């Protein structure tokens, strides 16, 4: 009887447990790791393609900056992000704001310059140094994606609410020079603009509480 009991107990246990043991957890894990590896390899391939597609380094660069140090054979300028040192060559040209040739001695610390450089044999040469007015190098245009909240009856002023910043409300002033286009560059008229329409506005710097519209692009 005891023998029968043991056989019964063993059979019952293995009958219930056996089907679950048949599923191999390592196989599922292996498949998932395989998928993950494949996805990662794909991403790495894409990134490598992006890197290898880049243009070869151009040895000629132009940096705007302020003179920090200047001596007979070196010039150090401070750009927006860093300080950079260049070697002055025997043929380095120095020019004032009117593009007239000046001497190296005419350059002083804290002057604003545009420095044209050439990288040769790992040395950065300053080949042309121009005195500049920083504001002449700026681009003060503003590009805004917004919804037309209001159009004046004359159609010369538009109130634009930024799509991604509801607190930003702009008065856009239109004039005869304002271009109105579709995103495919088809020319439109002011009368084609409607309230609640989404547009992209390229405007000049703020002038008397409104931005002069240079180009409006409908979406």
């Amino acid at each position, binding site marked *: 009887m005891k023998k*029968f009991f043991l056989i019964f107990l063993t059979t019952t246990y293995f009958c219930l447990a056996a089907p679950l043991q048949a599923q191999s957890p390592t196989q599922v894990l292996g498949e998932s790791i395989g998928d993950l590896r494949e996805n990662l390899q794909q991403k790495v391939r894409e990134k490598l393609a992006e890197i290898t597609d880049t243009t070869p380094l151009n040895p000629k660069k132009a940096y705007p900056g302020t003179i920090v140090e200047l001596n007979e054979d070196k010039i150090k300028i401070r750009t927006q992000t860093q300080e950079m040192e260049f070697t002055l060559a025997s043929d380095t040209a120095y020019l004032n704001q009117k593009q007239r040739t000046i001497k190296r001695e005419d350059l002083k610390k804290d002057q604003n310059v545009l420095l044209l450089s050439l990288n040769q044999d790992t040395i950065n040469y300053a080949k042309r140094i121009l005195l500049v007015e920083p504001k002449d190098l700026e681009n003060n245009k503003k590009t805004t994606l917004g919804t037309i909240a209001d159009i004046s009856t004359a159609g010369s002023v538009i109130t634009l609410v930024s799509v*991604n910043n509801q607190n930003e409300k702009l008065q856009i002033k239109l004039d005869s020079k304002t271009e109105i286009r579709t995103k495919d560059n088809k020319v439109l008229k002011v009368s084609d603009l409607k309230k609640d329409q989404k547009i992209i506005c*390229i405007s000049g710097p703020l002038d008397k509480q409104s931005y002069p519209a240079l180009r409006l692009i409908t979406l």
Partner: protein
Amino acid sequence: MIKTLLVTAFFALILGLGLSGTVYYLKQNQKSRQSLSTVVPTLNPQAENPSPTNTPDQPNSTLPLSLTITSHQNYDLISTAKITLTGTTTPKSILVLTTASQNYNFSADDTGKFSQAITLDSGFNTLRLKAISPDYQETELTYYLTFSTAKI
């Protein structure tokens, strides 16, 4: 004797069910963890190809819009005024480029690539390039290119 046998069989059944249940629970738990970890690599393709069902007025701020210029490097000195600016961004984005004197608008293709012929002003140019994705995410890139014919 039959009573003892039945009681033993009952306990054996309970024991078997308990063990089976435990193994099943552990296996399910493991599966769910695996499926969570395999979701991660598929997030980027979704970001690059925003679903058409996305509500345009609710931009997805968690996934930044990428914008790269591949034809030129920042601060490049160029000897021709007319150049072709190429790069990549989110597919079908609208791009707006401004220089001090010029304005351009163009679109990225289905793969996110864009190409636009532009004319540089003489001297230093501050290029402002803004990309707007189909779901109205925005990103802006400022690039500095100098056009000069001077011998360097």
